[in-house]
């Protein structure tokens, strides 16, 4: 017959054990949940950065005010602005321009002409360097005329047909989730979008300010050539190309990364506060639970338990409750973040993308470890304090 004292002690005091389990569960819930939140926001931001994938974006001058650049480009609100193709050619000829590609925006509406109101983004497969790499991950084939690729949030599937301004488009692929507003957009090649633009014009639905629909461009994306700084190229375009506005994409997302930093700092502070509080409570809980049994511990010493043995018993109690609590808390955090992620996304108003499974596992394991170590350390401290007192003094102190 062997006896696991720690286990027996826990079993003998179910209420105390339950309180310890709940406490450690709360600790791990906050640390795991908080870390998941912060890392989802970070992943979302880097996903957004990757989507933009260019140093400079050039848009018609009036876009900054008219349709609000950020609303269209960053928040994905359906909108459009156009300039003539000659602008693109001008920009392409400037010194320091490396990779360059045009994009075309069109907003579908909710009226009878279109299946759904979304932002439609056209790109030129010949030159594109921002959208194609990302589409490649979900779809390997070429986009035939009339083919579209839909964002992950759209309620459409491969093989479906969506109608925009009377033109039937086939869904060729559905993209992976990005956590950005692009999840609600539709992508297509330059030919198809020109067809859509022309068709919308026929229906009298868009204002092109006299520009030939075959020769419109919404935005030009640029990577600078080697040896040129972003500022240099940006200033050069702003000075020498008329009626356009060149902006640094980094600056465009600066607002988002600022509020992301703010949010993750806040979450960090909250985690820290819960931890300080949790550690104090854990320490108190273990000190109380050890103090309550100081006579029992003294009796174990009389029978021949060393200080180390006592510490081992108390630490084992902490480990068992910690493992239970941390398991429950971490599980709840995972389920909670998974279940409420849309709500969180909407609430935070920031790009939000869960990290990969490997990373999630790592976060979960680390949170469990952190709580286990904290609980065991708290237990060790209280056990050490009690075992330093002369056994005889404890025994006479409260002759139970």
């Amino acid at each position, binding site marked *: 017959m062997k*006896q696991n004292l720690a286990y027996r002690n826990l*079993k*003998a005091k179910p209420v105390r054990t339950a309180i310890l389990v709940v406490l450690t569960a709360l600790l791990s819930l906050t640390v795991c949940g908080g870390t998941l939140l912060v890392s989802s926001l970070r992943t979302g931001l880097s996903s957004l950065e990757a989507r933009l994938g260019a140093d400079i974006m050039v848009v018609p001058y009036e876009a900054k005010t008219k349709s609000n650049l950020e609303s269209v480009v960053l928040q994905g609100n359906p909108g459009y602005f156009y300039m003539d193709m000659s602008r693109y050619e001008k920009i392409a000829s400037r010194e320091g321009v490396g990779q360059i590609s045009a994009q075309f925006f069109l907003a579908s509406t909710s009226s009878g002409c279109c299946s759904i109101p979304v932002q439609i983004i056209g790109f030129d497969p010949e030159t594109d360097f921002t959208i194609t790499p990302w589409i490649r991950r979900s779809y390997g084939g070429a986009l035939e005329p009339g083919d579209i690729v839909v964002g992950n949030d759209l309620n459409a599937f491969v093989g479906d047909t969506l109608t925009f301004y009377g033109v039937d488009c086939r869904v060729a692929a559905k993209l992976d989730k990005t956590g950005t507003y692009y999840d609600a957009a539709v992508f297509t090649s330059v030919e198809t979008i020109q067809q859509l633009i022309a068709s919308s014009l026929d229906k009298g639905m868009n204002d092109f300010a006299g520009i030939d629909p075959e020769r419109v461009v919404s935005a030009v994306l640029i990577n600078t050539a080697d040896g040129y700084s972003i500022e240099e190229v940006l200033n050069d375009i702003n000075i020498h190309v008329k009626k356009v506005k060149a902006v640094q994409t980094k600056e465009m997302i600066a607002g988002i990364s600022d509020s992301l930093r703010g949010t993750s700092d806040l979450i960090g502070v909250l985690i820290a506060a819960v931890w300080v509080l949790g550690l104090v409570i854990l320490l108190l809980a273990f000190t109380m639970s050890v103090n309550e049994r100081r006579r029992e511990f003294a009796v174990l010493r009389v029978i*021949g338990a060393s*200080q180390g043995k006592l510490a081992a018993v108390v630490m084992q109690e902490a480990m068992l409750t910690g493992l239970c609590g941390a398991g429950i808390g971490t599980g709840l955090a995972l389920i909670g973040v998974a279940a409420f992620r849309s709500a969180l996304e909407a609430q935070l108003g920031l790009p939000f993308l869960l990290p990969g499974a490997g990373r999630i596992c790592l976060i979960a394991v680390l949170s469990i470890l952190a709580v286990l170590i904290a609980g065991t350390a708290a237990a060790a401290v209280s056990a050490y304090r009690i075992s330093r007192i002369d056994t*005889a003094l404890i*025994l006479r102190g409260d002759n*139970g």
Partner: protein
Amino acid sequence: MKMTAQGLTKEYARKSGNANRFTALHPLDFTLETGALTVLMGRSGSGKSTLLNLLAGLMRPTGGTVLAGETDLFALSDRELSAFRNAHIGVIPQGQTAIYSLSVLENVLLPYTLTGSAEGEEIARAKALLERLDIAGLADISPADLSGGELRRMAIARALVRQPEILLADEPTADLDDENTATVCKALQAAAGAGAAVLMVTHESGAEAYADRMLTMQGGVLSE
């Protein structure tokens, strides 16, 4: 295994009162002989428990040494002293000493299970002890359901179960009726008969009948 104390003394720090140190045990030389039941009597507060706890290595003396056989108790590390006590010294402290998360039988088996495991032979010995102390029927219940006298007998069984060479009992008959007092005294006497060095601290005048040697403590001074 005999026990020898040399120049053993204990002072306590007192929180109030005129003198801030109080000498509970004046330097004493003392030998606890093997194969004998030594009974120590004395008024309350005379220092009996202090001596017993020092002999058990449960607190450090202000001065002097305690030898158990050839082993200097206070020269051992905590781990060594604990292991030594577990193997060689049975202690029955004053007051209640139950571990409430374990059953009565498991309490009695603790000296084994604390460091290893208890198998058929050890369990049989524990059950025989419970039988002899007349609490065999209570083996599987929780100590919380026991009377004071039953708890005391459980503690005695626990101190005896490893058949220690040294047995130190602090008022083991305090809560017991005459019949049970006799049972306990006989058990201690039997242990002495089997070769152990046994010290019993008691107020019980009836204990004299079982004693091989009588000692008295008075104001921290031991006399024959």
